[in-house]
Structure formats: structure tokens, C-alpha cells
């Protein structure tokens, strides 16, 4: 890398660090760090007796990482440079290798922070903190660099291979590994799932490129760590070298991709959807009743979401994949009744939580209106009605996705009893509402952009991890409290109706108080002081 780029990376990192330290020294930042430390300590304490992080990594790590790498093939064509990089570096007398290495170094900075966050959690049970930290960092770097490599390879294919050939390659890339795993799953139905992951030939082949990376995280000795980390770095270097060598008009592709992405970020920041611009003005839903102003507010959010439903479709696709796996794996393994129920329950748990944890896809609430807060405040609507109108659409969509997933899984696996299914379905809208209240409260207390500034935006990575962890722990606490209240009600009254009504009443109260808290946070939100840059 040439001297100016080393200088730029160093200055940028130094200034970002100074800015982060300044923020952490403020009360809100200190509170966030304290919360994160407490959470990590709680996770460490509660999982101190869990066996073998290293064993789990060995069994599931490599195929899972390669699955994520393969998902990177769907990334757009071109390297991503920040808008400032495009303006300053792409016009400067710098070689392609210098630019590519700089880009990777920028991503390594993000990977380091991501690795640091993840390594805090399994420290208590892994082979060692250093291994976990370096292993996770290398895995994140692999995901970033392989995504760039795949983008450049796709650009090369677009130039040199006709469309039909490209389709064949894409189908082979996606179908052949999936078919191999499915066939082996069926053939080796005697193995438990964990054993299958450990012994499968297809998964071993698919996961081979990622094996050194996950082996770094679980290396039992210093020598093993050196070998694994060294091999991982060599693989990364090979990717970078190939990116530099492939004969594609990389600058043009990078600019087009970077500009599209920058436009998307700008659109998201100003209230657009996460998944591209609205494409249709045809789908029009009728205006809702006024409801003290909450109706039109909710109508606006739903109308925009209906015209750009890609976020929901993405969520549905993920729920569909989880459901297909939960239904398909037992089917491939001879429909063992126990496995059907176990997989069904796991699937129901996941499809219940996924829409709540992936709330950014449904961010048709205050998070979508970050740059319109002033406008919202100018509307002649009470803050409570506004909060209700903002939360209702996202809660409705989250519930719809959950209901579709749970019903599908329940019909296919009969994993829950009829009564429990009804209870789960009945509680879903309330739980979703509470979860979205938490999302919006956190957002209004500590406003953040829901998109990163650039691949080196370390502050964004920190926020993402911290908010996801916080939300997860609060949701688990609420669900735990709900179950406890139900149990106490059942033991005191002996009536199932009371056992359901008591926690439901508590959750409904949480909805009302949560909405009032969101309204209060919105009233306190100062557009002049709180809007993030």
C-alpha cells in the first residue's frame, strides 16, 4: 500500500477512535458500555457450564461460514468504496492493487471490532479469548473479502461468458451443494444431526475453504493456532491477489456499485426502504379511520411498505428457509417422530423471534422517519396517538410473518398441542407490539442511523451488536416474566383461563406503558440536538 493510503487509514482510525472515546465519556455512552458489560457477564455466567465451544465450532462452523460466503454471491457487481473514496482516491494516481488493499484494510478494521464483540461472549468457554478474537475477526474478514472477490468474478463472467452460461454456473453454484447435502442427509439417516455435521463428506467439501478460519477460533495449542491463522491469511491473500489480477473495468464497476449503494443509504436515511426504491404507485390501500390521528399515521407507513414490500419479502424468505429446514430435515431422515417434534419446536421458536430480532426489515416506524422528526412534531396529533400509529403497522406485519411461520410449522409437524398453539398465536401481536416499543424507545433515546456510513464504520458495528443484544435480553426477560406470571396464576387459581388471562393482562399493560413511554421519548426528542450526523 502506498504511503498516502497508510496515512489516510491511520488518521481516519485515530479520529474515529477519538470520536468514539468522546461519545463513551458522555452519560449515554457510558450507560451503553455498562449495559453491554453487564449483559456479557450475565451470558458468561449463565453459560459457564455449557460444554465445548470448540466442539460446536468444529462441528457447525465451517459449513455455516461457507453458507454465508455463498450468500455473498448475490451481492452487486463491483467493489464498494465510500463516496469520499470515490471522489478522492479513484481520481488520484493510485494503482489498482493499492486501492484494493486499502479497501480490504478498511474492512479489516470493521472485522476487528466485530471479532472483538463476539469474542467477549464465548470467552468463558472457548479455547481462549485470543483464539476466539482472532478466529471471529478472520471469519468476518473472509466474509467481506470473499464478497468482493465474488463481485469481481461475476463482473468478469459478465464480460466473458454469455448469459446462458452464466445461468448454468449460477445454478451449479447454488443447486449442486444443496443437492449433495440433501442426498447425504437421506443416505446417512442413522447419524444424529450433530454427528452428521461432523462426519458429512459433502459438508466437509463445502466447508473446506472456511475450515482454517474456524479452526483459528478453536485452536487448542499455540502451534495449531499459528497453522490455522497462517493458512487463513494465505487464503485471504490469494483472494486479494486474484481481485487485483482479474481483468475487469473495476473502477467503473466500483463507481456504479458505490453510487447505487450510497444512493440507497441516502434513501434509507431519509425514510426510504432498506431494499431499494418504491417501484409501484398502483397498490393503494384505503385510508384508515382517524382514531385521534393514529389512523392516517399508520396508513402512511403501511402504504409505503405495501409499495415497497422487499423488506417483508426478505423476512418471509428467511422464515420460509427456516421452516423448510425444520420440516425438510426430519423428512430426509425417515420422519423420526421425535426429530419431527424437536425440529418443529425449534423452528417455531426461531420464526417467532426472527421478525422481532430483524426489526430493521420492518422499520416502518420512528426509525424510518429519522430525517422527518421535525415534520412529525409539527402534525396536530397527540404524541400517544402518533406513537400508536407508528408502532401498529410494524407490529401487524411482524405478527403476520410470525403467524404464517408458526401455522406452517404446526400443520407440518404438530409440534405443539392445540391449546399451546392458540396461546402462542394469541400472544404474538402483544409480544410484537412490546418488542417494537423497545426498538423505538432505544432508537429515540439513542438515535442512530439504521445503515452504516461505509464498510469501515466501526461505530455502526458497535451499535448494531449492542442494540441486538439489549433487545434480545429484554425480550427474553419479558417472556420469562410472562411465563412465571402464568405459572403462579395457575398454581394459585388452578384455572387455565386465569393462567392465560393473567400474563395476557400483564403483556397488554406492557403494551400500553410501552406506547406511552415511546410517546414520552418522542416528546423529549429534540431535532436540533438528537439527530445523528
Amino acid at each position, binding site marked *: 500500500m502506498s504511503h498516502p493510503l497508510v496515512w489516510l487509514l491511520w488518521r481516519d482510525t485515530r479520529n474515529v477512535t477519538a470520536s468514539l472515546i468522546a461519545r463513551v465519556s458522555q452519560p449515554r455512552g457510558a450507560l451503553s458500555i455498562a449495559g453491554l458489560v453487564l449483559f456479557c457477564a450475565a451470558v458468561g455466567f449463565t453459560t459457564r457450564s455449557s460444554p465445548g465451544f470448540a466442539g460446536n465450532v468444529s462441528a457447525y462452523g465451517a459449513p455455516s461460514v461457507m453458507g454465508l460466503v455463498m450468500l455473498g454471491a448475490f451481492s452487486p457487481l463491483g467493489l464498494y468504496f465510500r463516496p469520499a473514496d470515490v471522489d478522492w482516491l479513484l481520481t488520484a494516481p493510485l494503482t489498482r492493487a493499492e486501492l484494493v488493499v486499502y479497501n480490504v484494510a478498511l474492512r479489516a478494521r470493521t472485522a476487528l471490532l466485530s471479532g472483538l464483540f463476539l469474542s467477549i461472549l464465548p470467552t468463558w468457554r472457548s479455547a481462549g479469548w485470543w483464539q476466539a478474537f482472532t478466529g471471529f475477526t478472520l471469519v468476518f474478514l473472509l466474509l467481506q473479502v470473499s464478497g468482493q472477490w465474488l463481485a469481481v468474478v461475476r463482473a468478469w463472467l459478465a464480460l466473458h461468458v454469455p448469459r446462458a452460461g452464466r445461468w448454468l454456473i449460477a445454478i451449479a453454484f447454488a443447486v449442486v451443494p444443496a443437492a449433495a447435502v440433501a442426498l447425504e442427509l437421506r443416505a446417512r439417516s442413522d447419524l444424529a444431526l450433530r454427528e452428521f455435521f461432523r462426519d458429512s463428506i459433502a459438508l466437509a467439501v463445502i466447508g473446506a475453504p472456511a475450515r482454517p478460519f474456524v479452526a483459528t477460533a478453536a485452536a487448542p495449542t499455540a502451534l495449531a493456532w499459528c497453522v490455522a491463522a497462517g493458512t487463513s491469511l494465505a487464503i485471504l491473500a490469494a483472494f486479494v491477489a486474484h481481485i487485483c489480477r482479474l481483468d475487469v473495468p473495476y*473502477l467503473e464497476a466500483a463507481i456504479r456499485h458505490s453510487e447505487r449503494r450510497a444512493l440507497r443509504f441516502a434513501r434509507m436515511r431519509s425514510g426510504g426502504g432498506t431494499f431499494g426504491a418504491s417501484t409501484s404507485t398502483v397498490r393503494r390501500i384505503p385510508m384508515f379511520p382517524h382514531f385521534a390521528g393514529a389512523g392516517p399515521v399508520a396508513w402512511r407507513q403501511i402504504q409505503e411498505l405495501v409499495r415497497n414490500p422487499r423488506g417483508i419479502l426478505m423476512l418471509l424468505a428467511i422464515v420460509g428457509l427456516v421452516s423448510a429446514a425444520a420440516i425438510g430435515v426430519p423428512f430426509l431422515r425417515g420422519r423420526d417422530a421425535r426429530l419431527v417434534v424437536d425440529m418443529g419446536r425449534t423452528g417455531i421458536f426461531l420464526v417467532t423471534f426472527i421478525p422481532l430480532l430483524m426489526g430493521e426489515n420492518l422499520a416502518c416506524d420512528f426509525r424510518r422517519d429519522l430525517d422527518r422528526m421535525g415534520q412529525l412534531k409539527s402534525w396536530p396529533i397527540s404524541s400517544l396517538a402518533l406513537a400508536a400509529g407508528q408502532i401498529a403497522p410494524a407490529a401487524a406485519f411482524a405478527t403476520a410473518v410470525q403467524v404464517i411461520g408458526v401455522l406452517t410449522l404446526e400443520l407440518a409437524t404438530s409440534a405443539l398441542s392445540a391449546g399451546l398453539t392458540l396461546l402462542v398465536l394469541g400472544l404474538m401481536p402483544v409480544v410484537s407490539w412490546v418488542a417494537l416499543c423497545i426498538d423505538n424507545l432505544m432508537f429515540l433515546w439513542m438515535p442512530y442511523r439504521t445503515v452504516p456510513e461505509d464498510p469501515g464504520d466501526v461505530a455502526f458495528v458497535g451499535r448494531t451488536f449492542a442494540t441486538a443484544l439489549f433487545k434480545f435480553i429484554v425480550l427474553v426477560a419479558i417472556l420469562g416474566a410472562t411465563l412465571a406470571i402464568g405459572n403462579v396464576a395457575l398454581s394459585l387459581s388452578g384455572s387455565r383461563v386465569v393462567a392465560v388471562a393473567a400474563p395476557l393482562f400483564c403483556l397488554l399493560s406492557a403494551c400500553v406503558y410501552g406506547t406511552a413511554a415511546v410517546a414520552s421519548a418522542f416528546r423529549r426528542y429534540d431535532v436540533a440536538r438528537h439527530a445523528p450526523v
Partner: protein
Amino acid sequence: MLVVKELTKRFEDRVAVDALGFEVRAGEILGLVGPNGAGKTTTLRCIAGILTPDDGAIGIDGVDLASQPLAAKRKLGLVPDEPHLFARLSVWEHLELAARLYDVSGWEQLARELLDELELGARRDTLAEALSRGMRQKVAVASALIHAPSLLMLDEPLVGLDPRGIRTLFATLRRHAGSGGAVVMSSHMLGQIEPHCTRFLILREGAKLFHGSKAEIAAELPAMRHDASLEEIFFGATEEALR
């Protein structure tokens, strides 16, 4: 200083720049004008070496861009339409970055002069994220001038500048041209650029409509007064092309 021959750039089926040819001499300020989608930004980006032309040749101060891209880029300064700065670098650090990128030694004195000239002296240690758009524009201009490029190109440089900023910018551009450099500037603000540009290049749908001084272009247009304003000439030229 700048020679463009038969420059053609396509985006899939759309021709963005169509066999465009023109020259810019030392000391000249060329106004690049045309309606939206005329190909102004694409032309500037091809000259800057960040888009690869499908056809044609570009020479900057005698250096062929296609065969010697790094040498050609050293002779060029570009101020893009939206001044993207590194949010957490200060004004002074941006100038230092530009000096390092173009391997300029002893840049500090020129940097101080440019900051004073563009009224940024008091902001030299301010981070870019705290600057207004106009100030960011001025930082981009100062950074593009730090290596004394033979050719300075500015894409819509007047957007976001206050009247005083516009006056200062034109003084800087005139000084650059007066010292033997060439300037190419695209803008929709015809009234603002008219008194400062020595020649104009009017584009429409990627093709050259007219190229020359205001009087030369007016003479080519039927029924156009010789003292017509640039705005009248622009509408005359583009509507003539529609007919």
C-alpha cells in the same frame, strides 16, 4: 492542455457521450453546459480516468490517458458535483491527504494561501462532518489545487455556495487560468458562469451542439443577436437541435 477526440461512452444500450471532440487551451476557462442527461458529468468522469471510454482518445497536457493513466491523473484536479469529504478528517488533513496522494512536497505554504483565499483559514482544524455544504465545496476546490494541476475540472461547483463564495471561487479559477492552467467547469447557472468563461461547449444527449466563444456560437445560430446572453444562446441552441 486538454484534447478530446471522438470520445464515446455507452451504458448498456444508452449512448451517454457520442463521438465528442474538443480542445481546451492553457489559460482558458471552458463552460460545459447542457440540459440534464446531456452527458456533462460522464464526459468529466471519462477525462478524469474513472470511467473507461468505449471509443476515442483523451490527452491531458500531452499525456495519453489510456496508455499512461497515472501520469495523466497527476496533471488533473477534479472537484465532483457532490463534495464528499472524509467525515473525520479536518480541513487541513484533507489538504495534507491531497498533497500526499499527488506526492507534493512543501505544500504547507500553498495550503495556507488557498485556505486564506477561500476563507477557510479559521476552519483549518474543523472536522469535515461539521462543515456546511459550501465549505465542503471550498475544501474540495482547495484540495484539487494543492498539486497545481495543469487541468482543473469542476462539476457543478456553484451549488451550495453563497454569493461571496461564488465570487471567491471565480477569483481562484481566474488566477489558476492566468498562471497557465486550464479550467473546465460544468454548470446550470448560466448567468453566473457567463462573465467568467472564455468559451462554452453546449452538449445535448451526449453530442456536441456548439463549441466556441459566446459570440462565435451566437453567429452560428440563425436570428440570434450577437450580444445575446448565454441563457438566450443556450435555449436557442438546444431548441434549434430539437427542430
